[in-house]
């Protein structure tokens, strides 16, 4: 039962991260494998703000801003110039992998190899639907719910959100309709980057102790959750994240903790083989 509880919290963290990741991929067409390293860099910024006597939940704002700005800069100065050269899309993916390594090990060079943790009260414990949850865990679930509702509302009901979906579905036609797609894409980097920074900080808080390389394999979970739910689908991301989060934690508890990421890998490969557009996603018709 406790592994199910753990699974639920990891799933909530993963859902926050996946919602940003899937939005980024769908609108910008960049499979940004550096997402995990931006998460952990953002977590460290939050951590340093926190070390200067700021409450962890306020310090989190620093992480959110770091994620947003770093992602925007990455697009502006790395991905966009590469895309302009009309190279095969795989080129940008490989570049992003390089950025991920640089981001992670660059951070490690700066902060050193040791584990750190937020100065934060775990709060009291609550019984909730048969699970024992700390207030930290309840807040994470609350943030996750707020992010899902917020992103859904953005995409479904706002002018910006509809333009983002139109840009994702057919960029050329979006431009023919008067949408400045470059602006929409930069804005998407800011929003999805903010979610990345938020996810990174929450991930580190939930982990308790963390180091520069803590999120290094997280990209596997993100990819699995995204493809499970269908790229670009926020509710799909939530479904994918819960499935992956619970499956990995439960398998860690009952089989062997070493198999955690392997389970995610198996799900990812199975999805790519059988339903590359996800459980909910539909094939883009042309």
């Amino acid at each position, binding site marked *: 039962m406790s592994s199910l509880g753990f699974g639920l919290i990891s799933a909530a963290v993963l859902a926050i991260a996946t919602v940003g990741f899937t939005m980024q991929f769908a609108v910008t067409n960049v499979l940004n494998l550096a997402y995990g390293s931006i998460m952990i860099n953002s977590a460290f910024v939050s951590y340093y703000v926190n070390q200067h006597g700021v409450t962890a939940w306020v310090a989190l704002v620093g992480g959110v801003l770091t994620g947003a700005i770093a992602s925007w800069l990455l697009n502006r100065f790395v991905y966009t110039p590469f895309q302009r050269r009309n190279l095969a899309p795989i080129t940008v993916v490989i570049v992003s992998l390089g950025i991920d390594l640089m981001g992670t090990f660059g951070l490690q060079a700066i902060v050193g190899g040791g584990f750190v943790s937020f100065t934060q009260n775990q709060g009291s414990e609550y019984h909730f639907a048969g699970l024992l949850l700390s207030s930290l865990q309840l807040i994470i679930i609350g943030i996750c719910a707020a992010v899902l509702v917020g992103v859904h509302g953005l995409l479904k009901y706002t002018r910006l959100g509809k333009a983002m979906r139109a840009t994702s*579905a057919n960029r050329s036609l979006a*431009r*023919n309709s008067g949408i400045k797609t470059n602006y929409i894409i930069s804005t998407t980097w800011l929003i999805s980057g903010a979610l990345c920074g938020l996810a990174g900080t929450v991930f580190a808080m939930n982990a308790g102790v963390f180091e520069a390389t803590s999120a290094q394999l997280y990209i596997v979970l993100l990819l699995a959750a995204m493809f499970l739910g269908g790229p670009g689908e926020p509710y799909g991301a939530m479904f994918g994240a819960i499935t992956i989060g619970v499956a990995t934690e439960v398998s860690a508890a009952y089989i062997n903790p070493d198999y955690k990421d392997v389970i995610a890998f198996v799900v990812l490969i199975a999805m790519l083989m059988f339903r590359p557009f996800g459980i909910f996603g539909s094939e883009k018709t042309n």
Partner: protein
Amino acid sequence: MSVELSKKGQVLTATGLAAGYDGRAIVSDIDIEATPGKVISIVGPNGSGKSTLLKSLVGVVRVLDGTVKVGDTVITNTPSEEVAKIGVGYVPQIDDVFPPLSVKENLEIGGYLLARHEIRGRIDAVLEFFPKLKAMMSRKAGKLSGGERKMLAMGRVLMLSPSVLVLDEPTANLAPIVATQLLEEYIRGFADFGSTVLLVEQRAKAALRISDWTYVLGGGRVVLDGAPDDLAQNPIFIESFLGGGAATHAPKD
């Protein structure tokens, strides 16, 4: 036409135009003019560059040489979002809707440049024109039939009341009766109202029937142009498009 969907037109001209992909010209030496109140059509075999030509006019494909103008405004290589803003509405041959968006959302995106309070009224006007769409507002565009989809594609572009309509094979996939209606009532109607219509149409006979002037494209160049009545008598045109000898009289009866 009960609802005014388009605006009085402006002249669309291309002079000495060359355009193509990756710096390689697909169409060249193109001189065409589309004027208000007229339907100007482009016909030509598959791969002759009809779509490439239209795309270069609206900023989708790079112009390598020459000038494109709307009225007195030079729009050569103007980004397509700006071209939309000055009143040129373009319906591509393929990928003409946003499949994951609902019909309503497709129309809303069509009206992206309008003020929020104008969008509803415009959607109502477009629906009056294409009443079939009314029943499928919440359906995803990707789930429409070919004909419904074409109506939506036309509806989307009409949201901005364009003064120049650039249409790439709007009748493809349509049942003959619907295609005829679209061409002879709606598209001819836009021109009669005063808009400028530039149309690519595969079926030469249908094109001649509603056009005021027709350009024939071959190998990326204009090989022939003229008024429909003259083209219908032209042996070369008859040979290549009207199925040799079959049509010895003007299709306009």
